[in-house]
């Protein structure tokens, strides 16, 4: 880094007019954009392993793409899932819409559409949640194992998600063989597609 920064002397030209996120997003969404910008900053600066998300384009902060790596020690370990996140204009009063783009074999995930059944994304949504917390929840949803951070910060959530919520399965087959982890892994790998590089 040193040699880079030493040559970074002064900025030669003033940065071109910022076609900033605020200007191009929906009208009256200034505060939403601001919140999303803050969430992005927080997410970038926190180093939560295995989760990440970023806006699709610099002009629209309302559509993000995320990445979740399966937590180690779970059946999803070593697999990487891409998700899409869409924020409604009245975010954060209404939850964002999240879908798996990579086929995910999981009791609470629809294998075809990628929709997720997770109550904090529906009726239990609260404005204090953020992209980061949701992503962490999703990561733990996958393996049924919670990271210590989550346990500390979201004790309440822990109670809900210690196990995949088999009571409301979107994927009945998955729910049925959940207890047989080996069979489950076989099914999981049958559907799983590794990420391609050229997704941009």
């Amino acid at each position, binding site marked *: *880094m*040193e*040699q*880079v*920064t*030493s*040559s*970074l*002397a*002064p*900025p*030669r*030209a003033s*940065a071109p007019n*910022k*076609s*900033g*996120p605020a200007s191009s997003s929906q009208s009256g969404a200034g505060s939403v954009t601001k919140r999303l*910008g803050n969430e*992005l*900053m927080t*997410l*970038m*600066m926190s180093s939560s392993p295995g989760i*990440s*998300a*970023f*806006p*699709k*384009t*610099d002009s629209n*902060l309302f559509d*993000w*793409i*995320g*990445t979740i790596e399966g937590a180690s020690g779970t059946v999803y370990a070593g697999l990487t899932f*891409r998700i899409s996140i869409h924020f409604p204009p009245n975010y954060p009063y209404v939850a964002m819409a999240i879908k798996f783009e990579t086929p995910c074999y999981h009791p609470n995930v629809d294998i075809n559409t990628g929709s997720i059944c997770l109550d904090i994304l529906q009726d239990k949504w609260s404005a204090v949640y953020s992209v980061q917390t949701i992503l962490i929840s999703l990561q733990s949803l996958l393996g049924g194992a919670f990271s210590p951070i989550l346990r500390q910060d979201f004790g309440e959530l822990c109670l809900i998600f210690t196990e995949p919520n088999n009571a409301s399965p979107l994927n009945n087959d998955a729910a049925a063989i959940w207890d047989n982890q080996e069979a489950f892994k076989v099914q999981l790998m049958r559907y799983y597609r590794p*990420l*391609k*590089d*050229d*997704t*941009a």
Partner: protein
Amino acid sequence: MATDALRAQVAAKWQESFARLNHNEPGIVGLLNFTQAWNIARECIRPRGLDEPDSFTQYDKSTFQASFELLNKSRRLPILLESLLEDMRKRFPVIKEEVDRYTLEYERTSDTSFILNLVFRLLKWYKKWLPMQELGATLHSAFVLSFQTHLFSVLTPTFVRGFKDLCASTLPSTDPRTNVPAPNVEMWQAFEILGLLDRYENIIASVGYEHIEAHVVAACSGRWSNPMLGQLRKWMTDKVVPWMLLMYARNATTADDARAMLQNVGSRFDFHMAKTLCDLRTKEIFDIIIDYPDSSGALQDLKECLHRVDQRASLVHTLRKANQKRLLHPGADTRLILTQYVATIKCLRVVDPPGVLLFKVADPIRRYLRERPDTIRCIVSNLVGDDDSGDSLVDESEPIQPLQQYELDDYLDSNWEPEPVDAGPDFRANKPSDVISTLVSIYDSRDLFVKELQLLLAQRLLAIIDDDTEKVEKERRNVEILKIRFGEAALQICEVMLKDMTDSKRIDGHVQSQKASIVHPIILSKQFWPMLEATEIVMPGQFRTLQDEYAKEFTAFKPDKKLRWLPHLGTVHLVLHLEDRIVEVDVPPLEAAFIELFSQQDVWTMDELIAKVGSSVDGTAALKALLTWVDLGVLKEQAENTFRLLEVAESAADGAREWRTVTKSVIELPSAPSIQQQQAEQMRVYWKFIEGMLTNLGSLSLDRIQAMLKLAPGYDQTIEQLGIFMEAARLEELVVVRDGMWKLTPK
């Protein structure tokens, strides 16, 4: 074969010629007379040996005239002239032989007197052979021309060299003690008569030039304090002009005449002198600049010379080359480069007020300085007048004025003048004229300076110990001065920092009045101070208690604020009561923390100590702190990294030391991270963003990355800088690039 007509024609011609020679005398008496006259005339103008008697001695003058009269009447004079020249050609080997002998002699001895003698000898021959004036101008000039032609053809290059030496020997010596040799008028006359002056004019002039060059170099090299041009001109008038008179104004009868004759050649010599001086000063220019202002005389000379001689391009070229070779290399200190740059500005402003030369010379220096990482720091520390900086770049006398910016052309300026002819396309006539503005304008942005100023001020304020209000006042004065330069708004943060200093004192006064404490913190408004290196030392024992008590009082006084301690920036005055001695010392907090721990137990390992004060302390710092105590004889290193408290001083080797009086200050200037570090910090933030977008969006082009980085707050890098940054990341194997698309290195 011959026709009658031809026969008749020849006969007529014959008759005519015969009649002409015979002068209508009876028989061939006329013809005989002619023969006699011819013989006399030939004899009379025949080239003779030097020892032969002159023709006058043999014949009466009237006899010649009669003979010539006769020949003239017969129109035979041209023939006579031809035969004379022919005779001369035949006799010339005698002269050639003489020339060869003398030049050989000269070549052997390099003694110019041989050449001089030769010239006189040649003159003798010339005079001997010269036909009498009475015989008419035609004959005379034909002779002179022919003689000179023959003479020049036999003069060898050796003679030319000798001739040059001879001329040079007539010049006044450059050594002022020896007298001017008496002018050898005869010699110059001889030169002229023999036509040597005209033929060798160039050589004589070059003798003069060389003489001037030698004198200028001898008189002016390395003497820069006074203008030399006046002295040189006087020298020319006194010494060179008399010499020039001998050859260039030899025919002058009056002083005015001489002046008119000398005017042309004189200005040529004067030009040459100016050129020589100019060349000399150009060669010396780098050292002249170093010596500025002691070398202002030389600069005046240079200025005048440049008016006379067009050497500006060569001056620029030489100075640029010298700078490249002697200044702009890694071995030169930035401060030195800046000093030289400022001197260059001042010097070239003397030489060339419009600043064209300066612009051309300064460009490489400025470009180089821009690449140096510590340029800004140097300039700024000079601005605030660092105590240890030696001499200041800025003249005390220069009035403090706001920084000047480039201005657009003022179309209403009635004093407008066109730009100088040799100005480049980028040249700006209305450049900032004061030194500081010029230095600041090295960078396009003034913000960098302001940032660096804040850093430096923070450092200096934190370095003040013992409530030294005088120093704070000094900083305040500095800031006020800088406000004039940079403007009020830019220095607002500095203002807050200064205010913090006074506020701290007030708050401290209040807290102390509530509950006396020996802790006297300086309370910084975090937002306004540069990021201070945060090594979190957890102070043990009594220090902790003191801090906590103080913090409680503070919170009571200002309920909405919270104290966050930066203990590593403070100093601690300690009095250690040991069994046999008392050690009194000012130390940094880490040292204090360690020694406090030694009051709990006598032996500690370094790792234990570090664990006690918080793991952010690194080994080197800890070792340094411990060694401070070892130096003071309070601790002893028992085994590696294990230290023991010496309750009783070890008297062995250094018993002579007097512990009771040890009062030593081991405080160092607290360091605030430099701009570079802060930039690196910022780049780390940007890297997180880049990492984030590449993780989620796959591979991206540089343009996309640049566009996406706008989402990062405060991103202000150009795409070129981003490119450099990404390249560096690639070298660290964080990213890979293919076909212009960047992506993270696959795990």
